[in-house]
C-alpha cells in the first residue's frame, strides 16, 4: 500500500507548533494522572508484598482481618510454638516470634497532625525472621528494657521517633536507640520494642500475632491441619506473603478505581482537544488532500496520514506526561491504610508494564480523537477539495 510520507505527517505537527503543544500538553496532563495513579497502586503493592518472606507463616485469630484485631492467648501461643514443621535457627532455637501489635497515635513532624503508627513487640528471633530488616543507625533494643527502634520512614516523619528521642506512653519513657531500614517494605512504617515489655506495659495477656518459619514449603499443609484439628486453637495460619498482599488489596484497589475513573473522565477532555485539533488540521489542508488524491493516493492513504498525525501527537503528549510522572519516584508519600488503620509509607513505582500501559492509553486517546476527522478527510470528494482552494 502506498502511503503518504512520514515527513509530511511529522512536519505538519511542527509547523503548527502552538496548537500541537497545547493539544499534546492537555494529553500529557491526563497521562500524568493516569501514570501516577498506576505508580501509586504499584508502589503500595510492592511495599506490602515485599514485606513477606517466602517461608514465613503468620498466625492470627480466626476472622481477624488485621493484626490489631487479633488476639492469641499465652496458652494458645504455647501450643502453636510446639507444632511440628517449624524451622530452627543456627543455635537450635525454633524460629518463632510472639508479637503484640498496637497502634500509637503520634504527631507528624511536618504539620503536627496525628496519625496511627504501628508498634510491634518483637525479639531477636523476630529480627531473624525478617532478614530484610537492617539497622542503619544506632543499635538494636536490649531485651527487658524500654528501648525501641524505629523504621526510618517513621523516624523521618513523626515527632519523637528519631535516634535519641523519647516517646512517652503506658506510663513509661521509651528511648529510641536505633533506626532500621527494611528495604522499602511495610516495616519501614513501624516501631519495634521488646515483646514482653510491651505486654507488661499494656497489661495484656494475649499476643496479637505469631510469626514462624517453616522447615520447607511442604510443611505448611501439616501445620494448617494440626491447627484446624485442635479445638483449643481458634486461629488461622497464613503464608506471610499472602497476608501482606491481602493487606494492600483494599487501599490499592480504592486508589486504582478512583484513579482510573478520573483518568477516563479526563481523557474525554483530551480526546475532545485532539478532535478539535485534527478537524482544524483537515479543514486547513483540504486543498492538499484533494491534490494528493488527484495524484493517485488512495482514500486509505489519506486516512492513515491523518490518523498517524493524531497518534504522533498523542505519543508526544504521552512521553511528556510519562517523563513528568517519572519524577514522582523521588517523592516520599504515606497514608493511612484503611485495613490496618495505621500509617503506611510507600513510593511511586514506575515499571515497564506501567510505561507500556501509559503509552498505550495515550495512543488510544490519539486514535479515538483522530479517527473521525481522518475518516472525514478520506471521505471527501476530490473535486470538492480542489474547489475549496
Amino acid at each position: 500500500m502506498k502511503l503518504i510520507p512520514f515527513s509530511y505527517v511529522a512536519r505538519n505537527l511542527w509547523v503548527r507548533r502552538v496548537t500541537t503543544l497545547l493539544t499534546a500538553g492537555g494529553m500529557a496532563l491526563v497521562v500524568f494522572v493516569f501514570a501516577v495513579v498506576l505508580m501509586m497502586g504499584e508502589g503500595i503493592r510492592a511495599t506490602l508484598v515485599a514485606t513477606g518472606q517466602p517461608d514465613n507463616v503468620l498466625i492470627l485469630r480466626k476472622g481477624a482481618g488485621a493484626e490489631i484485631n487479633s488476639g492469641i492467648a499465652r496458652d494458645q501461643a504455647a501450643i502453636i510454638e510446639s507444632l511440628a514443621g517449624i524451622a530452627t535457627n543456627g543455635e537450635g532455637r525454633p524460629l518463632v516470634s510472639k508479637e503484640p501489635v498496637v497502634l500509637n497515635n503520634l504527631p507528624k513532624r511536618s504539620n503536627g497532625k496525628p496519625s496511627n503508627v504501628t508498634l510491634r513487640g518483637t525479639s531477636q528471633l523476630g529480627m531473624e525472621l525478617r532478614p530484610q530488616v537492617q539497622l542503619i543507625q544506632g543499635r538494636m533494643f536490649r531485651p527487658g528494657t524500654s528501648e525501641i527502634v524505629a523504621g526510618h520512614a517513621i523516624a523521618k516523619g513523626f515527632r519523637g521517633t528519631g535516634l535519641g528521642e523519647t516517646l512517652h506512653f503506658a506510663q513509661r519513657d521509651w528511648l529510641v536507640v536505633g533506626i532500621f531500614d527494611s528495604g522499602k517494605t511495610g516495616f519501614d512504617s513501624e516501631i519495634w520494642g521488646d515483646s514482653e515489655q510491651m505486654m507488661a506495659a499494656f497489661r495484656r495477656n494475649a499476643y496479637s500475632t505469631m510469626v514462624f518459619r517453616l522447615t520447607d514449603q511442604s510443611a505448611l499443609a501439616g501445620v494448617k491441619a494440626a491447627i484446624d484439628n485442635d479445638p483449643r486453637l481458634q486461629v488461622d495460619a497464613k503464608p506471610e506473603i499472602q497476608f501482606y498482599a491481602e493487606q494492600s488489596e483494599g487501599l490499592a484497589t480504592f486508589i486504582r478505581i478512583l484513579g482510573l475513573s478520573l483518568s477516563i473522565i479526563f481523557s474525554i477532555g483530551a480526546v475532545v482537544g485532539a478532535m478539535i485539533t485534527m478537524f482544524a488540521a483537515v479543514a486547513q489542508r483540504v486543498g492538499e488532500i484533494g491534490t494528493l488524491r488527484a495524484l493517485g493516493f488512495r482514500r486509505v492513504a489519506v486516512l492513515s496520514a491523518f490518523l498517524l498525525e493524531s497518534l504522533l501527537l498523542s505519543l508526544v503528549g504521552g512521553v511528556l506526561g510519562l517523563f513528568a510522572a517519572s519524577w514522582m519516584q523521588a517523592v516520599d508519600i504515606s497514608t493511612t491504610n484503611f485495613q490496618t488503620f495505621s500509617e503506611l509509607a510507600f513510593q511511586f513505582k514506575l515499571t515497564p508494564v506501567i510505561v507500556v500501559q501509559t503509552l498505550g492509553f495515550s495512543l488510544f486517546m490519539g486514535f479515538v480523537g483522530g479517527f473521525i476527522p481522518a475518516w472525514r478527510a478520506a471521505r471527501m470528494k476530490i473535486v470538492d477539495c480542489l474547489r475549496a482552494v
Partner: protein
Amino acid sequence: MTATAEPVIRIRNLDKTYIRGGQPIPVLQGVDLDVQEAEFIALMGPSGSGKSTLLNLIAGIDKPTGGTIEIGGVNISTLSEGDLADWRAAHVGFIFQFYNLMPVLTAFENVELPLLLTGLSRSQRKAHVEAALNMVRLEDRMEHYPNELSGGQQQRVAIARALVTDPTLIVADEPTGDLDRATAEEILSMLDELHSELGKTIVMVTHDPKAASRAKRMIHLEKGVLVPDSDILVPVH
C-alpha cells in the same frame, strides 16, 4: 485535422449532472470530443460553461453520469475508484492555478510525491526527480520549501511534478491564473517546450487569451455543450 491514428482521448456522449439541494443541475450534455496524441488543446468558455468539469472528467478525478471516456484505449468511465487512482498515478500529470504544492515538503519532495506511487527504488526516484527539476531549470532550488519560492518558481516545481512519471496526459487548470504577465509567459513557454520537444498531450482550461493562443486547438463550451468551431469569434492576439 485528419485523425490518422486512434485518438488518445475519445469522448462520446458525455453527460455530467450534479444534484444541488435535491435539484439536478446538468453541467455537461452530450459532449463528443477526440484529442490526438501530442495535441495541445485549450478548453475555453464563460463561467459555468462546464469547462473545468470536462477537465476533471478527462483527468479522472470525477466520474461522468453518462457517456464514455477512453484514454489511451482505457475506458476510464467504468473504472473503480481504486483503479482510477492507480490509473491517474500512471497516466496523468496535474498543473493547478494555485500550484497546490505541499507546504511542508521541499521542492524535491514535492516532485517525488507521484513517484512514491510507483515501485521505483530510492535512487531511481532521485534520478527522475533531478531530471524533472533540471527540465524546468530549478535544480539549484531542490531543498527549498514552497514559501521560499516565487509564484513562477512554484509553478515550475508543479510542472516538474506533473512530468516526473512521464504521463500520457498533462492536465492544466488555469496555470497562469495567479501569475504576472512576464512569469505567465515563462510558464507558457515551458508548456510549449513540453509539447513540442517531449510530445506531451496537454489539455488546458484557461480564460487567458494569450495562454489560449499558445495552444494549437481551441475547444469552446457554452452551458455544457460544445460550440462548433465555425461559431467562434476568433479572439485578437
